[in-house]
């Protein structure tokens, strides 16, 4: 198949493969993770799975520093005409809470796919929403009903973070608040095809701009 000439090319492709390796949520041992890709209007998924749920994994505690290993494969290929709306990986981790109640939301997180080709090790620190009132927080702790985002893609978006909830009983509206807890580590291999032909410069894999060396150390060694 002949490749289209540079002037005719309409799309570039971004391929992301990798693994959701592990998560670390101190004090929680049985976790599973949901992932969704979120991308802009000009983007479409060519092949691969856009969303998935990992198995329920638990850690035995002593060996893995409390981290839970999923090793869940991710493989998706995106096509786009414009880098605006670069794909993001939205993660939500669920698990048991202190009282062993299942399916509690533990954290949400989102990360852009790396813009440079190559292998990237990414750690996503996660957060979850808090109930808007103190009473609500206490209740959610007691009843085991934690607040969740209505839209699972919320972490990938900027809007709504400033939202307030007008509470009639209090003069000041309660601000939208979250708490950060835990992290998920991923390995992502990214390959980009056809961006240079569209006029975008693609950095070479894992290039670093400015670097300082120690000439003295170098001469000695």
């Amino acid at each position, binding site marked *: 198949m002949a490749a289209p000439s540079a002037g005719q*090319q309409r799309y570039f492709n971004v391929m992301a493969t990798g693994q959701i390796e592990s998560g670390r949520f101190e004090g929680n041992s049985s976790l599973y993770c949901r992932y969704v890709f979120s991308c802009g209007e*000009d983007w479409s998924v060519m092949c691969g799975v856009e969303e998935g749920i990992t198995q329920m994994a638990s850690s035995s505690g002593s060996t893995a520093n409390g981290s839970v290993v999923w090793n869940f494969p991710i493989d998706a290929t995106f096509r786009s005409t414009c880098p605006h709306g670069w794909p993001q990986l939205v993660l939500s981790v669920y698990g048991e809470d202190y009282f062993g109640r299942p399916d509690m939301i533990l954290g949400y997180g989102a990360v852009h796919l790396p813009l440079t080709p190559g292998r990237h090790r990414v750690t996503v620190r996660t957060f979850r929403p808090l109930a808007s009132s103190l009473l609500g927080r206490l209740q*959610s702790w007691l009843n085991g009903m934690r607040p969740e985002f209505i839209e699972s893609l919320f972490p990938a978006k900027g809007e*709504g973070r400033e939202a*307030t909830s007008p509470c009639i009983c209090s003069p000041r509206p309660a601000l939208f608040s979250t708490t950060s807890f835990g992290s998920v*580590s991923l390995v992502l291999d990214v390959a980009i095809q056809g961006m240079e032909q569209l006029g975008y410069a693609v950095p070479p894999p894992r290039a670093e701009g*400015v670097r*300082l060396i120690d000439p*003295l*150390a170098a001469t000695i060694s």
Partner: protein
Amino acid sequence: MRSRLARGGAKQKGDDGDKKDDSADAAPAVPVAPVGDLTVRPAPLFTSGSKRAAEEAVLYTTAAHPRSFSPLRRRRTGLGGGTFDDGLYVAPLPAASARALQTLEARLAFAPGSKALADGAGVLLRQPDPVRPVRVLPSWLDAAGAEPSGGPFEVERRRPEKWGTSVAGTLASGGASPRVLQVSVGGIRLQDHRLFLREHELQSACRSLVARLEDAHERQLAQLHALKISELKEAVADLREQIGGGAGEGTTDAKLQSRLAALCTELLETRQLKDEQECAERLLARRLLKLWHALKAEREAQGFKSTRARMQFRLVEPSAIDEEAEALARELEEEVDERKLAHALAAQAAPGSDLDEDGIRAAIERRQQELRRPPGEGRLLPVYSELATPTPPEQLPQRERSRQREAAREVLYARLLVDGRAVCELGCGKLQPHDMSVRLEASIQLQLLTRPASLAVEVWQRRYGGLGDQLLGQVYLSMPETASPTMPHWQSYAFTASRPFQPLAGREGIHEALENALDGVQPLPRHVVSGEVEVSTAWTTRPADRLSEAGAGAVGDLASGGALAVDPQQVLATVSPDELDPNAPTDAPLLSLMARIDRGSVGGIFRHLRNAAALQWSSSWAASDRFSLFQLRRKHPGKWAQLPPDEKAVPPRDSLIPPGMRQLLRPAAEFDDAVGRYDSDRVAQEKASRVKAWITQVRARHEAARASQRYVMDTQDYVREPLLEVEAAEINCSAFLKLLEPRRKLLPQRRLRKPVPGSDSTERKIEVVVQSGFDLPVRAPSNAQRGRPKTSLFVEVRFQGQRFTTDIKSGANPAWNTILELNLAAPGGDWSQQAIMNLSDEIAFNLYDKVHRTERDERDESQLTVREESRWLGGFALPFSTLYRNGKLEGSFPLDTMPPMLLGYEKDSESRSQAFVPASALRTFLTINPLLPPPKEEERERLTTHDAKMQEFAKEWVKTIARGERHVRVFAPGADGQKMLLCRFIRPQNPPSELIGNERQLLRYVSLVPFLDDAAMEGGALDVWNTSDSFLDLGAGDQEEHAILLCNYLLAMNKGSYVVLGSGIPEGLTAYVLTIEGGSPRLWNACTGRTWEKDEFDRCSLTSVGAVFNQQNIWANVGPGEAPAEVQWNLSDEKLWKPFFGKGGFARPDVLPSAQLSTLEYHRTTEDFRSGIEREVYDALQREVEELRGFRPTDWNRSVNAKLKDLLKRFEQDVAGVKKLTAIEHDATLERVRASYHMVGLPINVTYTDRNAIIKRVRETNIFLADAKKIQFALSVYVHAYPNQVCSVWVYCASLEDLRAGSSSRSS
């Protein structure tokens, strides 16, 4: 804090104390998280002799000099006692709790890129962060020592030595070889500071003057000018000779002369310049002398020396006076000569004035006197040095001593910024109290893969031990051009702080002193910290390369312009080689650059983008089609939604835009009214597509409103808090009470039905009880029969394809009391509330009269033919959603679709109806069994940003007045996603010009605009209130739009009219129009075109009145009555009607801008269009009927058709209130027909949406199924056109039974 794991703490001790680097070498390499793109390493100091000595003295002090360490110090610096005694140095570990260390260790092991082993054998080694400033000793401790320039004990910052993954490895894979930029900071010399004395200020003025003088001397400007003069003189002389020799040779002569003139002017200019330069230098020297005197006077006055400034003046003895005077006079003569020559040459070109020789001579003499050194005066050569010893501290007054101590505490440091990012701190030094300068003497090597856009150095002042550091100034460094010498080439950059300070007392008068000294040069009016920082930048090679053979090549590459900063082509574009002076030293670099361009050997390591030409630059960006597409996508998401799903991505180039998008870019084609030609498919399609487009557009706008945060968003919109959704369960005590009640078997207790959530497993039925009919039509006596014939009425109920009929009853007021059970099925088994709400099925009730005919063949008496036909008399339809919302419906429903005339039927004698047909109604009861859970308001009421305050108030207001099921609202969502106050929809609007003045005609017009239920819209309910112009344009809308349009028309006719919100049967929540004329209210239904006077209110289909509004206000019905008949229509009574604006309500805003246009535009419906519909409907119906009758022949009676058509026109006039149609007139028209035929038929009136709706209605009548001997049919279609292609379609269908032929037939 940087942390790392090291195996065994002991390893990092230098074994022999040889070099401090060793300690780090022994430690395992630890990868470094890069800071942005930067990785930082320190470079050795350039001028490090003394400092390193001091450092080594500290670091490697053996037990031979233990006295310099106090126990306190030892603890502070964290030196372990034992190791110290061994003469070994161990880097101090910052304190951290064991628990913190453990957590840190665990997290590090988890962190990406960590190579640390998690086997627990390592010890966490913590080192100071190399990038962020870390204070080892607080500054007050330093100052307490008070030893000048770092005493025996000075704690230095230590940076981690060994780190970074292999640079070489990365570089080898990366391809591009890095360039090394060395940045050194020498020192900072302050020009003004808070702690400056007058003396310091004078010194800094001295310094700057000396610098200027030195610069002039260095450039040898005066000598250069002198050289140039002598050269030019020779050239001029040569030329003159040439001209003299070859006189009279036309063109060459002229050329030479012009050349001569140019040389002459240049010579004269150079003379002037030379004199000025000499004068400037002399002046500088004199000023310095003055300054020096001022400084000395200052020292005298204060009684001590606080600076090291020393100035010596060397007087260069002049040569003999007369010699000099002679030289001057010679120069004068020469210049006069040259002037004359110049004048002569100028006069040749343009003859004119005479030369005033004396005047010139005088002018030159004056200049010489002013600028030139008078003969005999010596030249003053100032020699400035800073070698004087200041007064020792013992002899200083207390105030000065404290000032010096304070100054010595000031610590300044520089910070290097690459591309705006802080790379590292470059040196850090204390202020020298005498020089008021800081020696930083630090250097750094940056390894760069790309050329940095900017290099800058920031000068910071350390305050509060590093807690409140203050930025003094920032200087941007020039990037060195080609390979520069590795030795520092110092350049001074001046910086000034932005914040002024209060100078020390006694400095006030300094301005005058300085002004005196500097001959009126104005110093700054306010004091800010300023100074100069010395920086040197140079490209170097990597140290490894320098050693290796290959390194030579790299250096050569650099030297040939590898790191060239300027784009040579750009230089060429701006500078032309002709403008450059090959002799001027300042132009030399430019010239060499040009030469290199010519050689074509320009190579850049910073590559151009390969496809740079193919990119669209910002200037052309706004004009590109892609840009318009992006804008369109943002502003008109509805249009974008119409694109096919795989074509929604904006292509990367204009040339690749698909035709679909190009279509969008074109200006929207207006709906072609001018053509007005009728084309059934086109009209139907266009209408459907327009409505569809509008719905998608509104949906998209609402989405956009959400996205653009026009809504006031709550956390509830984003976060689901399960607890907020849990409703408190009611505790029902009545169950207990019931147990205690005495049992009465004969008094059964009513049990409430419990709603059961919908699912396919529970069988669900709609129970319909057809109870009775009121005022139903009765058969008219026909000529053939004697006596009054009895009707055989039955009701047919249809739902979801099911069909049930009641028994047959007769009479005008029959009672059926039949229970019918209709199965309710949810499509696709989807029992969600949304799906049920969207169920568009209707429960249709139709009233039929069953007619039996028996025909006896006259020839064969034994043969009897019995024909049975059901004649449709009227009916109504209930949308299922109404039933679902209410749970049960009970009441008498008027037969809406009953035609205005039923041939062969008449009113009962007791009927109160004024029309041809009785005002029939059916009393029915409907419910769903088992009950469905009542619909919950899923969509929380949102506030939009516009009028948000009012909306919030309205929400509360509605809550406070909520009573029962009354429908009250204050805001309604508009088409653009914003919520709008209802009053803003009301505004007098002009009716079509042909309908002005006739309210019935207006009502007729409005009611004819096709109805489109919000709930029936594609893709779920969409509650949007449309404006009248858009409503008329779309030709579709629901109750609100109809009512608002009618209300606006009535207002334009100066009728006091209101819109009533409430609920009615069968439409559910609805809007009516209310007019109050002379105290008598009247209700108008703008959808059906019916009106009710006050005394008819009990029969009104509006059952509950919630609120009334007009353009001024909204009144909520808070009175006891709910039905229109019970409501007191006196809006000013606040006990019954609570106004929104007014007492206890919201403060009325000054302006309520209307959402409606002030004038509506209409276009006439063309006759072509009208007749087109008429023809088409007629043809379609005829075909349909013939098909329906199948094998039976259909005999059309054309002559009756024409008569019926006339009647239809009269019907339209009657309904529109133009001219009343009386029964007599109607009968008279048909009298002749009826004389020979038994005529059964009815007119049907619908508004034109599409022909299928009309066909369906005609089929329902069953007229064309009639059969008799020689039966004939009549069908007539009349279309009346109203503006905006609103058409009223009348169809008269009738069956004609020949009375003569059917003499033997008898109906029963």
